[in-house]
C-alpha cells in the first residue's frame, strides 16, 4: 500500500473506532486516535503476518503495550482479516472476546495480554532474543505510551535490549505528551526522550507520528543500525483528527455525546476529501 492508501485506511479505522466508542459508551479514544497511523503502517506495509495462520513461527511480532487502546488494535486486526469486521460491534458487550484490553487466548493476532502498563517491552526483548537464538530474521515491534515510559520496567528492558544487541527489536513511543490525568510535563516529564534512549545505547529516530511517509521510512528494515535496538519517538497528538479532542487531556477515556459524535465523524469524513 502507498502512504496515501495507508492514510485513507487509517481514516476508516478512526471512524470505526469513534463509532465503537460511542456505541459501547467506553474506550480510550484519545490514545486510539494517536496510535492508529502507526498500527496501520505496521500491519499494511511493514509486518509479515498471516491472518489465516496467526501463529506462523516466522511472523513478525507486535506488542501493543499501551493495551488500553485495544479497540484500535481490534479494528486493525479485523481489517487485516484476523477477526470478522462485524465482531467490532460486540466490543465490551457481555461475553464478547473483545474486552477493554487485548487477550491473546481469545483474539487471534494478539501476541500477549496487556493492560497493566510497562509490560510490553520486556516481553518484546524476550521475543527478539528468541529470534536471535533461533537464527531467524523476523522482527519484533513494541508500542508504548509516553506516560507508560514512567514505569521502571521499561528502563530495565531498555538496558537489556542494548546489552543483547537486539537490532531486530523496534520500540515505538507514542509521544502524545499526555497521560491519564494530566500532561507529562506536569506529572513526570520524560521529554526529551531521544537523548535518554541514546544514552542507553539505542539507535533513535524522531518522526511525525501522523505522517505516513515518515512512519513507513522509519519502520523500514533499511534503517536498522546493526547491533543496536531501535527506538522511534513518534510525535503524535492524543485525539488526532478530531479538533476538540486533539491534545486535550479530557479525552483520555471520555465518551462523546451525540452532538460531539456527529461533529467528530464529520471532521474525519471531511479529511477524506
Amino acid at each position, binding site marked *: 500500500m502507498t502512504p496515501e492508501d495507508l492514510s485513507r485506511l487509517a481514516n476508516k479505522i478512526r471512524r470505526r473506532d469513534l463509532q465503537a466508542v460511542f456505541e459501547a459508551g467506553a474506550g480510550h479514544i484519545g490514545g486510539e486516535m494517536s496510535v492508529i497511523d502507526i498500527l496501520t503502517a505496521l500491519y499494511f506495509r511493514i509486518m509479515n503476518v498471516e491472518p489465516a495462520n496467526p501463529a506462523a513461527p516466522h511472523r513478525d511480532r507486535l506488542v501493543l503495550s499501551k493495551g488500553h487502546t485495544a479497540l484500535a488494535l481490534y479494528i486493525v486486526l479485523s481489517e487485516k482479516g484476523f477477526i470478522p469486521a462485524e465482531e467490532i460491534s460486540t466490543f465490551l458487550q*457481555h461475553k464478547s472476546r473483545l474486552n477493554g484490553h487485548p487477550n491473546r487466548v481469545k483474539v487471534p493476532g494478539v501476541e500477549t495480554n496487556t493492560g*497493566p502498563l510497562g509490560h510490553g517491552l520486556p516481553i518484546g526483548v524476550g521475543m527478539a532474543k528468541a529470534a536471535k537464538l533461533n537464527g531467524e530474521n523476523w522482527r519484533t515491534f513494541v508500542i508504548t505510551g509516553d506516560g507508560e515510559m*514512567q514505569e521502571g520496567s521499561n528502563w530495565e528492558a531498555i538496558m537489556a535490549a542494548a546489552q543483547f544487541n537486539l537490532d531486530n527489536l523496534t520500540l515505538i513511543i507514542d509521544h502524545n505528551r499526555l497521560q*491519564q490525568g494530566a500532561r507529562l510535563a506536569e506529572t513526570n516529564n520524560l521529554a526529551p526522550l531521544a537523548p535518554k534512549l541514546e544514552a542507553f545505547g539505542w539507535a533513535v529516530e524522531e518522526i511525525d507520528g501522523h505522517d505516513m511517509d515518515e512512519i513507513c521510512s522509519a519502520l523500514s528494515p533499511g534503517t536498522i543500525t546493526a547491533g543496536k535496538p531501535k527506538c522511534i519517538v513518534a510525535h503524535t497528538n492524543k485525539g488526532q483528527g478530531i479538533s476538540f479532542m486533539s491534545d486535550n487531556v479530557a479525552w483520555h477515556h471520555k465518551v462523546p455525546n451525540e452532538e460531539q459524535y456527529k461533529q467528530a465523524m464529520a471532521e474525519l469524513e471531511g479529511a477524506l476529501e
Partner: protein
Amino acid sequence: MSNPYEGAKLHDCRDAFTSVLEALGSDNTDIVAVCNDSVGSSKLAGFRDKFPERLINVGIAEQNMVGVGAGLANGGKIPFVCAASPFLTGRALEQIKADVAYSEANVKLVGISSGMAYGELGPTHHSIEDFAWIRALPNVPVIAPADRVETAAVIKWAAAYRGGCFLRLSRVGVPDVLPEDHVFELGKANYLREGGDLTIIANGVLTHRSMIAADLLGASGIDARVLNMASVRPIDEAAVVRAANETGAILTCEEHTTFGGLGSAVAEVVVDQAPVPMTRLGVPGIFAHTASANDLLNDFGMSPAAIADSAQALLERKG
C-alpha cells in the same frame, strides 16, 4: 418479600474516602496523598486543590509510589497511597512486603476500584487476588468496607492507627448498610441481622447483596444471620466460632477469588475451632469473561437470589 434497599440512594464510596481525607488533612498537616497518575480515578482533585504540596503524584510508577510512601512515613508523614487496586497490590507487592509490612512503616494503602469494579476492562484490571496477597503478610490489616458510612469510619480509623494497612475500596454504587454513627473497630464483625439457621458472612459490595438474600430466605421461613466482616485480617474469630456453634452452617460471599480470600480466612477459623458445613461464594478461580461489574457478580452466582439458593443448598448439608 421485600428488598430492604428498594429505592435507596447508591453511593460511590470513593466520595466518602476523599471527603474524610480532605477533612483530616485540614486538621493534620502530616497527612499526604501519594498516587500514580490517578488523581481522577482516586478522586483526589479536591485534596490536590486544597493542599497542592501534599499531593504527591509520582506518575505511572507503582513500585516507586509504594517506596516513596514508605520513605514519607519514615520522615513522619502519614501517607495515603492511592491507586487502582490491581496495580497497587499486584505491581508493588514486594514493596508492600519489604518496605511496608516487614519494615512496619505507617503507610495506608488504598486500593481503589477493587474487586471487579472495572468490569469490561477485564482481568488485568480486576483485583480479585488482593485479599489473598496482602492477607499473607504480617503487620498489614486488610479491610474492605461495605458502604459509604463504613468507608468514612475506616479512613478515620486508619489515620489514627499507627501502622500500615490495606483499605480495599470500590467504585460501584452501594446503598447505606451501617448506621450513620458507626465506628470501625479492627477485627470486629458487625451483626447486621440476627438468625439461627445459618450465617452469611460478607464484606464490601457483597454485604448489601447478602442482606437482600437474607430477606429472601426469611420469606421462605429461613432465619439467616448476616455478619459484615470488613476486617479480613485480623478476622473476628469469636464471631466466626459463635456463628458456627449457634447456626451450624456458614456461607461466605466476596468479590474475590475463592482461593485465599474472606471465605478461606473464615474456613481457617472454622476448621481449627468449630467445624461446620460451609459454602464459599466468589470468583471460582478463573479469569472473568467480558461483563459489567454487577453482571459479573450475578454471573458468578452472587445475585441476591443466587446467594439465597446457595444458602438453601447449604442447609441441606447441615444434617
